[in-house]
Every structure is written in C-alpha cells, then in structure tokens.
C-alpha cells in the first residue's frame, strides 16, 4: 500500500472507531438517564392504551397540581409530604426532604423527580416549580385539556402577564427548585 493511502486508511478508520465509540457512549448514557414523565392518574391507572403502570423502584418524573391542604411537615426534621392530582380522582403522595422552591404553593403545578417507593408514593430527590404562575407541567396541560384553569395572575389582571426572560433563563428550563 502506498504511504498516502495508508495514511488515509489510518485516519478514516480511527475516525470511524471514534464515532462508533461516541455513539455507543451516548446511547449507553441515554439508556441510563432517561426519565419518563407521568401524571398522577397515569401512575395509579397506567399509561397509554395498554395501561402500563410504573414499577415500584423506578425513577421517574411526575407533574401535577399540589392538592390544597395536603402539605404537611413531619416531625422536627425537614421532611415534607404533599399530594399531587391532575384530573382526579387519583392522587399520589410525594415525600421530599429539603427546601421547597420559592414558587411552591398549594394549588400550583409542580414537577417532582424521584423514585417510586410504593404504587402511589414518590420519594422525590428534586421538586421544581415554574417561574410563571400560568405554567403547567408539559403533559399535564394536555391531560387537563377542557378543564378550566384560571391562573392566579389572571384573577387580578386582564392582560397576560408574561415575563419571558425569567422563564427562559430562570432555572432548570424555567423551573425553580
């Protein structure tokens, strides 16, 4: 083989090996780190036409509205528990230890990420609330389609309150932890 072809062969094959390695790495990392999103109803009744329920021990995200009056602190520590609901009547309980985001309020849409410890109980590692009062977690908005939702901001004002820069740069994709 002449040296020029040899050089090309080495370069091409090393790029191919590199690309294969990179793809493998990405696919592996993806398979480890994708979290599925559920609504409370989907956790209790199952998701999709086959009604697939998440397994206990699975890591997932859940989005719903905080049931008013359900927020309770346990003991002298920092553990807090509250219920989440979407279209009802199914509710799930979220337990979390730590500081809730500034925008966490009863009746407000939030997203919790964590591990399912019982069929309707989530041990959250992270609780996110949106920087925008009108926000609903993606997926939840669809589940609630047709149900009237009056955001707190629109109860006082006619105009749409929309502070987009904060929603943008806010945090965690516009979430507040």
């Amino acid at each position, binding site marked *: 083989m002449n040296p020029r072809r040899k*050089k090309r062969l*080495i*370069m091409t094959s090393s*790029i191919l090996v*590199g*690309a294969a390695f*990179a793809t493998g*790495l*990405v696919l592996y*990392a*993806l398979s*480890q*780190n*994708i*979290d*599925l*999103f559920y609504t409370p109803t989907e956790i209790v009744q199952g*998701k*999709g036409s086959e009604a697939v329920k998440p397994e206990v021990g699975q890591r997932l*995200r859940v989005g719903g509205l905080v049931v008013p009056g359900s927020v309770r*602190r346990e003991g*002298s*520590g*920092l553990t807090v528990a509250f219920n989440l609901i979407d279209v009802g009547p199914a509710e799930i309980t979220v337990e979390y*230890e*730590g*500081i*809730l985001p*500034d*925008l966490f309020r009863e009746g407000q849409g939030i997203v919790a*990420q964590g591990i399912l410890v019982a069929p309707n109980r989530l041990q959250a590692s992270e609780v996110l609330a949106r*920087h925008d009062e009108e*926000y*609903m*977690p*993606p*997926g939840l*908005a*669809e589940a609630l389609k047709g149900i009237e939702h009056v955001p707190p901001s629109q109860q006082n*004002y*006619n*105009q749409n*309150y*929309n*502070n*987009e*820069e*904060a*929603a*943008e*740069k*806010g*945090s*965690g*994709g*516009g*979430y*507040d*932890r």
Partner: protein
Amino acid sequence: MIGEVGHFALALAFAFSALLAVIPLIGVARGHGGQMAIARQLTYGMFIFTLISFIALVWGFLANDFSIAYVANNSNTALPAIYRFTAVWGSHEGSFLLWMLVQASWAAALAIFSKRLPLVFAARVLAVMGMIGVGFYLFMLITSNPFERTIPLIPVDGRDLNPLLQDPGMIIHPPLLYMGYVGMSVAFAFAIAALLGGRLDSAWARWSRPWTIAAWVFLTLGIMVGSWWAYYELGWGGWWFWDPVENASFLPWLAGTALMHSLAVTEKRGTFKSWTVLLAISAFSLSLLGTFLVRSGVLVSVHAFASDPTRGMFLLSFLGVVIAGSLLLYAIRAAKVKSHSRYDLFSREVLLLGNNLLLVTATMVVLVGTLLPLVHQQLGLGNISIGEPFFDEVFMWLTIPFAILLGFGPLTRWKRQKFAELRNSLLLAMALAIGIGFALPWIFADVVSGLAVLGLILALWIVFTTVAELRLRVASREHKWPALVKLGRSHWGMVLGHLGFAVMIIGIAVVQNYEIERTVRMGAGDTANVGGYEFHFRDMQERQGPNFISDSATFVISRENGNHVANVVAEKRFYTVTRQIQTQTALQVNPFRDLYIALGEELDDGSWAVRIHVKPFVRWIWAGAILMSIGGVFSLTDKRYRLRRREEKKARKQAAAEAL
C-alpha cells in the same frame, strides 16, 4: 408619541436592511462601484434607526409610560431607576429589540472596519448582514412589537419586573450573550460572501478570524455571567444545569470554538477550507436554533407554544431558509474548493482535526440531549426528560481525549512532527501531572476522589505542556525573557485560552467532588457545623426595600477553632407588586472556597429551613472563562491585525497627498 417614533424607526430600520440585502449585490453583479459602496451608508442607516427605536423604549421605561403595554407589563414606579433601564430587556419584545441593536452594531462595526477589504467582498458581507436583518426586523414587526399601546385602558401603575431579574448580573448578561450570539452572524456573513464569490482562500480566513474571536469572547463572557448569576440568584448553589436555555447558548459556543481553531488552520496552512465554512454556517444556525427553542417556548411546554404559534413558526421558517439556503450554496460552491497542502499523521493539522471532531461530537451530544425529549413527544411516545447525569457522564468522557490532545497540539509542528523530538518534554509533563495530580488531594483533602484526581491530572497536563511549549519557543534564544515577550499576542492569546481551560477543569473537578451541602433546621441562636466552619444564626429582622419586604437573617461564620470569618445576611424577599417570593443568598468568598447560605421556608415553630454549602474552588470555573476571554482579546489585538491597518492609513495618506 415617543412610542410611535420608536415603532416608526423600527420600520425604517427594516427598510434599510431590505435595501442593504439587495442593492450591493446588484452592484456586484453589474460591477457598479457606487451601488457596492452604498452598502456602508445603508448599514449606518439601519444602525441609527434601530438605536432610535431602542432609545424610545428606554425613554418609555425611564418616564414610566404605562401606555406602552410592554412597559406596563415589566416595570413599576417603585422599581429603582437602574432596573427600569435593564427592564428594557426583561422580557421577550424588548430583549429582541436589544438583539436587533446588537445585530445592527455588529453590521455597523463591519462597515467601519471593513475598509481594507476589497469592495466587492465588503459589499457581499454587508448584504448578507442585511438579509439576516430582514428576517429579524420582520419577526419583530409582525410578532413582537414592543411599542404596542394599552390605550384606552392605561394602567395606573406597572406590574413590575420579575424579581429574579432585579439584579446586577442581569444588567450585563443579556447584552454580552447577544453580542456573542449575533456575532456568529458575522462569521456566517463572511463565509457566505466567500461562497458567493467562489474565493475561499487564506485571506478570507484572515479577515474573518478576528471577528469570530470577538464574537466568541462575548459569548464566553455572556455564558459565564449567566452561570454566575444563576449560582447566586437562584439559591440552589449550582453553576450549570444543562437546561435547554443554557444548552441553547452552549451549542453555538462549541461550534464557535471549533470554528476558531479551524480558521487558524485555514489561515496558516490553507487547508480545511470547506470544513471551516461548514462550521461557520453551523455556528450561526445553532444560534438561530437556540433562539427558536427559547423564543417559541416549544421546549418549556407545548402549552406556551400553542399560545403564540406565530413566533415559533416564523423563527422555524427563518431557520429553515437560512440552513437550506446556505447549505445549497455550500453544495454548489464548496465542491470546487480544493486543498493542496499535505500533512503527516503526527502534525498540528491532524491534532486540530481531532479537536474539531471532539467539539463537533460535543455539539451533537448537547443537540441530541436537548432535542430528543421534544422529538419523543412530537412522535407521541410520551414525555421524557434528559437531565444532568446524561450530560455529565458524556462530557466527562469527551473531556479526557480533548484535554490530552490539547496538550500535544501547541507543541506539535505544522505538516510533520517527529515524536522523538518531543518525547522527553511530554514524558516530563505527564510524570509531573500525574504526580502532582495525586499529591494535591492526598495532602489537602480528607478523601482522595478518583474523579478529582483525573480532573487535576488533565488540567496539570495542559499547564505543563503549555510551559514546555513556551520553553521550546525560546530554547534557541540567548535572552529567554525578552524572547518570551516577543512571542506575539496571538501566541499569548492561545496560551491564556488553554490555561483558562485548565483552570476551569480544576474548578469543576474540585467543586463537583469536594462540595459539601447540608440542609438544616435552624432558629435564631442555633449553630450548625459544616465543612470545618461554624454557622451561627444570630437574628432575623424585617426590612423594607423599595419594592419588596424582606426577612433578613444574619449569620456569624467562624472557623471551628473560633476564629471569626465574617457576618453575612441571607434574605427572603417578598415582592409586593408581582407577589413573588425570592431568595437572596448570603455569600462569603475567597479564591479557594465559597460559603453559601440560602434561606428556605419558615417552619411552624418559627425556625427556618436553611441550606448551607461549602464550595471549594468554584470561583475557578468563572476565572477560567475570564482567562479564556482575555486570551481571545490578546489574539484580537495581535500585531498582524494592527500593522496592516497602520500601513493602510499610510497608504491612504500617500494616495491623498499624490492626488493633491
């Protein structure tokens, strides 16, 4: 009245951009010098009217003109004047106006500093800037007019700026970031102009390089300030979250970094030409993609997208036109471009190719991680989320080969390098890096963390190979120090840029592995011990701010041996107009560690949930970014860019004298 002036000026700026997009190109086609030269005047016109429009909006904010809907939605009479000014870019419409002002400023700067370029080329570049302008001005006029009136129902007072944005970091973050984002359009304009003319040579790379570096410097600083702002303002102690908005700015940065290095090869060696052009197109397309993702709201929720589909659709179409158009042009023209230069397997060209491939891979990874949830959802497969663990893992693996190559690159000659010549310095650098990388955590930390050691080794490898490279450059000189100074700013720019990267790796490796975070329940008088420090919660006071009420907690921090460190104040603010609660963190900073206190909520018995972090070396992350930017500025001010300008002036003076 002023509002209408602003709106009208915006329409005029659009008109100028439309003329700019067309007339110079007609001039080029006909060979008409006047039509080409008028590109400059049109650019100035575009800039001046955008500036007028921007000033009109600023005036609206400073004068509390709540008849302008945008002002009413984002300001309030109680808001301090400085934040009334920054509220101009506090929300979508205004920040897009700032974007346009930045775009017009880049174009005007191009018009001023492009006088040494051939007229045909300058006309083409400015025309491309005009075309980009047409798209953006149309977008503003159709979907995002900041001057819309609230008449006849003028509110008495405004609804105030989002509290998160009432912060010094937000004064500079958006302008810097936009300078970077839009600056990529200049590199794009150069690439398209070169493709239009069919002349892709090293002269083109030399012209385009300082502009690319300038845009990259702004983008680096913009991202850095954003990270710093998020760190202290959001109150949860992280410095990078891999959220879609951050990724949107990181994508053009990665592509821009690759472009900067590829341009160096094109300028110095005349190869990689079509690859460089492709990178320039990608960098700008990724800026646009980022804008689309952020502006359309498509990433945040389907809900928001549906609320204003026109914005998203417009940007998506614009993005489509830009990508399709430039790739078509690329397909037609780039095939003719041939590179003749030869290089061996072990040469700087190949190492820079490796750098580029790794950066492009990183770009792809971020792109996949950002877009996959979206695609997944659109395909009806349900909602998924891809978060920090994915990016952290992949980026760790990508950083290893990247840093190793980075150590080799500057030492290696263009074209061909014998490994034996470098073997000793490389082995020495490697031995030092591994030795010290293990020794430092072993001496200073209680636990030796494998990842921290890895990060330190990589960073030290970069530092020692950089030193070896500097030694090599002056090895043959008799007077070492003067020779070092004489190396040239471009060279020092590279050195600083690489050292900045090393400093950043050290910061990331240490803070990720040695950070301590504790959430505790504390009442006034309580003390918590975290990471060798005592945090004493002294008292809680209520305080009245201009547009907020605050609960201020004073903490006394001391060493465990009793030495007093500092008193700091952490706050929980309630903004009365927006009715939002906001955490103001308490920070005590030195170069080697940050002490960080954030108040949580008040509990039933009057005590508070308090989160305390001890974050070693976190400042190094931002210091690294600043160092990289300084490197960029050094490269920009290199003699070869200044000299030519001086010669040019001399030549012009001579010509003028002869004409007399």
